[in-house]
Every structure is written in structure tokens, then in C-alpha cells.
């Protein structure tokens, strides 16, 4: 077999796992790594799942490794925080079947609440870290990671970035190799992490890394590209290596495929040959610090940004600062002044009416992570706080206590989606019952659209095609009494329930249901505006549905509302907020083609 295809980094990792004889893969959906598990579905040999959260996902993959099969667990960078607890112990014990953890880092925060460099996490956890620079390497390193993981009895991290997850580049496909399932042999020193066994494990952990550092000395994972007659070497890894290759530079390159551990012996040898060592890496000075704490003189972050993506232009600029380039070829052109375009809720999104209602209610709202995080942005600007997965429930309690102590009785609202509810909201809900003050005015709105919408509609415990767990019944079991269920498309009813619950002095929970407009692709006959009736009040415009726009009609002085029929999916929310019934449903037969 010698087939060349173009694959994204995510597809390449899935393919690598398949070729390596992998059997069990788990994840929690989060950009940029969602595609890994979605692509695993193409291989019938592999069992894969989106678990309730990253901690559970890791535990599933750990179990598979203990069970003797090659396993993989993928997540976005912040997901590693969630699974940190089992991870820190897993890396101290040992593996049985090969194991790789994929951490999808997001330099520049394209779709994340922070930018954390998980190479630091990998080192903290005593894992080896591989850092690919294109799709081919993403596939190869997944395979090598699994194999080395078995050879050195340790979990491996594959650190990948957003760009690489979604870039497409050419990959050579190979056959799958079937791997025998290893027997599980009882050994408390290996698998039971309690004293006295853990003390031995500490030494084992250190020895493995030492051995791997020896391996790093001349492994093919690291590539040395030497140029004659230059006194400079650039040490780099990941995508920025590819940027560097676009620039004609008179310097040698040492590209690390394995960024931890680094062979210090090798770099010391290089440092004797070269006068200048320049470190080119995105985000934190990880490689730079590794070398510096080992007494190797080098420079890096004084030339390149500590945050955001480093583009080709930035590499050139940094190299100029370092005195390695006399004249820059890439000149930044002036950007044009163009109106802004931020993300917004889709046409027919069920969250939209809720946010319109909350905006009118003028309350303090604590948001969470999901599509509804867009409640932070104009025109709604409803969320006052928006932190991390599942945090809104704990935060609302803490803030309520603080305000009550200070005598501030203003109502507080918290939002959470169904995916987030099952990910890490439930524990917060259980805690809410603890020392609950009867009069503490909190309103929690659960937006249940039956899918993990933000990342493209992966299943979760709420999905009717999967487990179909009833949020309402679960909350009743915990002991909550005041729970209202409402349909998000019945605007007036929803508004009266929400307004009333906000006023209620005590805790109330609202489960607002409506299917994700992307996932369920509803398409009812579209709506249109009768300009003769419209009074230009802009009530519909304020709901922010994409097809709505104020426009000039012939024979009308004022701007009147208009609905683009090609974008409208007919959810009727705009018609429900219009005070004069100017918005009407088009005839059912007046369909797409005839417009």
C-alpha cells in the first residue's frame, strides 16, 4: 500500500492510531481536537467515545491500557486541567498497552478561554512530549508514541496546536498492524498507588525519563539540518519550524520532534560548535528554560512573542531583531477598515429568545462555556461573568453568599447548557443544596438543546439518540423542588416564567428546551415583514437573528425591517416579539425555488 492523501492533523492522528493497532479511544469534545474521535468512527476495529468529561475519558483510556490494549485519549488544553488528578498518578504508575494523551493547545485562543502551554503540564506530570509539525508527523508521532510508550512503560503526550489540528497536508497511508492484547498481571507495585508502593514508583518514573533522554540523543524524531560556515543554530519544534523553512536563513536548524525530555548531552555538543543558539517556539519559553536550567546559553523570547500564534512574518521580524537578517522581505500591508464581524447565534437558535428575555430583565447573569457564551457579546451583553466548564453553578452560589452577607439582595441568574451540565455542572448542583438558604435568590437556567452544540453537535447524556437522561428527574432526585420546564420557542410564556422565577425569593431552576438549529436543521416556511404595518420599533432586530435587517423600502420614508428569505429558518421568534404583527409566515408552498 502506498497511497497519498491530504488529511487534517486530527484525521492523521486517528489514522495513526488505526495503523498502530489502537483499539480504544476516548475524549471530551473541545476545539481543536474534536475531529480525532469523529474520524475514529471510520475504523470499525476501534471503539471510541465522547465521555462525560475529560477526567472520565482519561479513566476509560487508562482502563483500556491496563487491560492490555493500545489506547488514546484526546482533549483540548483546558481539558487536561480536568483530568489532572488521575493523570498525575497514572504517570507515576505504569502502562500496560501503549497510551498517548493528545493535548490540543490553542495559541492565539481561537476558541478557548485561555492560552495554556501544556508542554509545562507534560513535564509536570513526568510525561514524554512529542510535538509534530504537519499531518504526516501527526500520524507518525502517534504511532511512535504508542510504541515508545510500551518500550519505556510510560504514558506519552502528543502536544498539537489548533493550526495543526485543522491544517491539511499530504500523508502517506500504511497498513494497520494488529497488536496482541497484553495479559494483565497483578502487581501492586505497578498499579496500586499507595505507600509503600508509591515510593518505588517515584524512582521508576525518574529512571524512565533518564533512559528516554539517552534515547533522545540520536533519535530520528529530532532532526539536525546543518549548514556549512554558520555560527548560528536555531532550535525549534512544531509548526513554527515550517514557518522558519519559508525564510532563507543562513543558520543550522535542530528541530525537536520530542520536546521533553531533551537530550542535554546533544545540545551541549551543539553549543560547542555554534556561537549563537536561538530558540524559536510558540507560547512559553519551554525549550529555552530547559536549556537554561542546564547551563546552556541561548536566546528566544526576547525576539519572539510569549503569546499568540507566531506567523511567518513574526519569525522574520524576530530573526531581524536577533541580527540574523539584514533586510526583511515580507512587509506587512496596511489593513483596510472594514466593519467588525463577531460570532452570533444561528438563525432559529433556541438560545436567542432566552437572551432577549434576559436582556430585557436587566439582571446580573453568570454564564458558562458553550454556544451560549456568545451571550457575552453585543448586542446581548447579558453575561457579566464567564469562566470555565461548569463553573457558573459554583460561582452563583459563592456570589450569592457574598452579596447576602453584604446585604445586597439583587437577583442572580446562572446559565448552563446540557453538555456542560453533565460535564461538571452536576457536582455544583449537589453542592448548591449544601447549607442552602431558603431565601437566597438564585435562578438557574439550563439550556437543553440535546447536544454538545459548540463543537458541532457531539452526543452527550442529554441526547435523545444516546442516553436520554432527564435533567429534570436527575435534579429532583438530588432534592430540588422548584423546577420549571419551558419551550424556548413559546416566547411569551417563556418570558413570563423567567420574569416570575427571577422575582422568586429562593432558588429556582428553569430547564429551557429547544433543539439546536444546526443539529436538527429545521426549515419551516420563512417569515416576511409587511412594511405597511411595521412601525420601525426594531424589537425584532434586537433579537439579533441573522436574516433581519432594517432597510429602505420604496414609498416608505423610514427604514423598515426586512427578513432575508434565504437565511430564515422559520422559528417565528421575530414574529412573536413584533408588537404590531407586521411579521408573517409565508405560504407553505412559497418555497425556496420560487423566491
Amino acid at each position: 500500500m502506498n497511497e497519498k492523501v491530504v488529511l487534517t492533523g486530527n484525521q492523521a492522528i486517528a489514522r495513526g492510531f488505526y495503523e498502530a493497532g489502537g483499539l480504544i479511544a476516548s475524549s471530551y469534545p473541545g476545539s481543536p481536537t474534536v475531529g480525532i474521535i469523529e474520524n475514529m468512527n471510520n475504523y470499525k476495529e476501534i471503539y471510541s467515545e465522547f465521555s462525560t468529561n475529560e477526567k472520565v475519558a482519561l479513566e476509560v483510556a487508562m482502563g483500556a491500557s491496563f487491560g492490555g490494549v493500545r489506547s488514546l485519549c484526546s482533549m483540548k488544553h483546558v481539558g487536561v486541567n480536568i483530568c489532572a488528578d488521575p493523570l498525575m498518578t497514572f504517570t507515576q504508575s505504569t502502562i500496560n498497552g501503549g497510551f498517548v494523551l493528545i493535548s490540543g493547545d490553542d495559541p492565539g485562543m481561537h476558541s478557548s478561554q485561555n492560552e495554556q502551554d501544556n508542554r509545562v503540564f507534560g513535564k509536570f506530570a513526568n510525561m514524554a512530549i512529542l510535538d509534530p509539525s504537519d499531518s504526516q508527523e501527526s500520524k507518525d508521532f502517534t504511532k511512535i508514541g504508542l510504541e515508545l510508550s510500551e518500550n519505556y512503560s510510560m504514558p506519552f503526550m502528543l502536544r498539537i496546536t489548533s493550526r495543526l489540528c485543522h491544517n491539511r497536508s499530504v500523508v502517506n497511508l500504511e497498513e494497520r498492524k494488529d497488536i496482541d492484547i497484553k495479559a494483565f498481571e497483578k502487581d501492586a507495585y505497578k498499579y496500586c498507588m499507595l505507600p509503600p508502593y508509591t515510593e518505588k514508583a517515584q524512582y521508576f518514573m525518574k529512571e524512565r525519563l533518564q533512559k528516554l533522554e539517552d534515547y533522545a540523543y540520536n533519535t530520528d524524531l529530532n532532526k539536525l539540518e546543518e549548514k556549512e560556515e554558520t555560527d548560528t543554530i536555531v532550535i525549534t519544534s512544531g509548526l513554527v519550524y515550517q514557518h522558519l523553512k519559508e525564510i532563507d536563513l543562513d543558520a543550522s536548524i535542530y528541530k525537536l520532534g520530542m520536546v521533553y525530555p531533551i537530550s542535554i548531552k546533544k545540545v551541549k555538543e551543539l553549543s560547542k560548535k555554534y556561537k549563537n543558539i536561538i530558540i524559536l517556539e510558540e507560547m512559553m519559553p519551554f525549550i529555552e528554560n530547559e536549556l537554561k536550567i542546564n547551563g546552556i546559553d541561548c536566546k528566544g523570547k526576547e525576539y519572539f512573542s510569549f503569546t499568540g500564534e507566531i506567523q511567518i512574518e513574526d519569525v522574520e521580524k524576530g530573526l531581524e531583531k536577533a541580527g540574523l537578517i539584514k533586510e526583511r522581505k515580507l512587509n506587512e500591508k496596511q489593513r483596510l477598515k472594514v466593519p467588525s464581524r463577531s460570532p452570533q447565534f444561528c438563525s432559529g437558535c433556541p438560545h436567542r429568545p432566552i437572551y432577549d428575555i434576559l436582556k430585557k430583565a436587566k439582571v446580573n447573569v453568570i454564564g458558562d462555556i458553550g454556544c451560549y457564551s456568545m451571550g457575552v457579546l453585543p448586542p446581548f451583553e447579558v453575561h457579566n461573568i464567564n469562566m470555565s466548564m461548569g463553573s457558573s453553578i459554583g460561582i452563583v452560589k459563592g456570589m450569592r453568599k457574598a452579596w447576602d452577607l453584604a446585604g445586597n439582595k439583587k437577583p442572580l441568574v446562572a446559565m448552563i447548557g446540557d453538555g456542560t451540565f453533565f460535564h461538571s455542572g452536576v457536582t455544583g448542583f449537589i453542592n448548591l443544596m449544601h447549607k442552602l438558604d431558603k431565601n437566597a435568590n438564585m435562578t438557574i437556567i439550563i439550556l437543553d438543546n440535546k447536544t454538545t452544540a459548540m463543537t458541532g453537535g457531539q452526543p452527550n447524556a442529554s441526547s435523545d439518540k444516546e442516553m436520554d437522561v432527564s435533567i429534570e428527574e436527575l435534579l429532583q432526585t438530588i432534592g430540588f423542588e422548584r423546577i420549571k420546564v419551558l419551550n424556548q420557542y413559546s416566547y411569551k410564556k417563556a418570558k413570563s416564567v423567567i420574569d416570575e422565577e427571577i422575582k422568586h425569593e429562593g432558588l429556582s431552576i428553569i430547564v429551557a428546551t429547544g433543539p439546536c438549529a444546526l443539529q436538527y436543521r429545521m426549515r419551516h416556511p420563512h417569515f416576511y415583514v409587511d412594511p405597511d404595518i411595521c412601525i420601525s420599533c426594531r424589537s425584532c432586530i434586537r433579537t439579533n437573528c441573522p436574516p433581519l435587517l432594517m432597510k429602505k423600502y420604496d414609498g416608505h420614508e423610514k427604514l423598515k425591517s426586512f427578513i432575508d428569505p434565504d437565511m430564515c429558518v422559520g422559528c417565528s421568534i421575530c414574529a412573536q416579539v413584533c408588537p404590531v404583527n407586521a411579521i408573517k409566515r409565508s405560504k407553505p408552498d412559497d418555497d425556496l425555488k420560487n423566491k
Partner: protein
Amino acid sequence: MDGKNILIAGVGGQGLVIATKIISEAALEAGYDVKTNDVIGLSQRGGKVYGSVKIDSKVYSPNIPHGECDILLAMEPMEGYRYSHMLKDNGMAIVNTYRIPSTSIQQEVEEYPEGMLADLKQKYNVSEIDVIKVGKELGNTKVGNTVLIGIMAKKLDIKKETWEKVIQKNVPEKFIDHNIKAFNIGYSYK
């Protein structure tokens, strides 16, 4: 063919990802090295998005530096304008004229810019077309990107049959016909 850098700009949800996939697979079929890049995540929900495709005998970075883009595929005029500084001086812009106003325009905070096309035409080689209109005539408004790819395909040294083969592979079975027709409308445009 010399190397070509292609930038695609549009609004999240317009199908930019599938467009980069089709272009990259056609380039691979034609024997080139290829790398692509698309912006994802939050911006998928109606935000500004762009992607790049680089085609050459050997490609390193998937990113295109400022002023190094040969062809700009603008799925929405304002978004094409936003990224037009990426074009080379004699670059080419293929623009879908169907407008999608952003929140700031809808909420009357900013105005949809007029005169963008005229400005682009002064600096670059511009082809303009309303792909939604073409799509409606074909009975499927989702084929717009294929029309734009058709216009571009004419300028690249990749066989027409290769494009058709790749399109067939990448669109759902029941839409193949619409997409092949859309591609041909683009291919024979002006």
C-alpha cells in the same frame, strides 16, 4: 505551474472547510505538494473566517504571509475586502456579491461598506458573481462555493476532469449533479 497561494474568506458556516478540502485534493491529484489551513472554533458561528491553500512542488508553512496571495476567493464581499491586503499587487479576487450583514451592521452601529468592489477593481483583477442567484437557478443555494471554485479552476494548471472527480468524492451523493453544474457555470464564466 508556479506555486499558487489561495486565500478563502467568508462567514462562519459558509462551507469554507469543504472548499479548502476540494482544492487541496485536486492539487494532490495533479501531483503537487499542498497544505491548507482554516480558522475554526467560535468563529464558526457567523464570525469572520479565512483559510488558505498553498500549492507548490514543496510547501512548508500552510500560512500565507501578507501580500503573498495569488488568488482570493471571497465568499462574502465585505470579508473579501477585509483580507484583500493579503493579495499580491497583480493578484486576483473572485467575489460572491451576496451580502451577509454582521451584527454591528444589523444593529446599525456600523454601515455596510459601499464601493468596495470598485476599490478592489482598481488594485486587482476582479471577477464578481452572485452565487446565491446561480444556486437558486440550479435549485440549490448551497452550491455557491463550487461556482467560485469553478472560476478559479480555470486559472490553475489542474485538469477539469480532476476537479470534477474530487467534487464528486466530496459532496453528498444527491447533490453531485447540482455541484458539477455549478462548477461548470463557474468554469465557463466570462
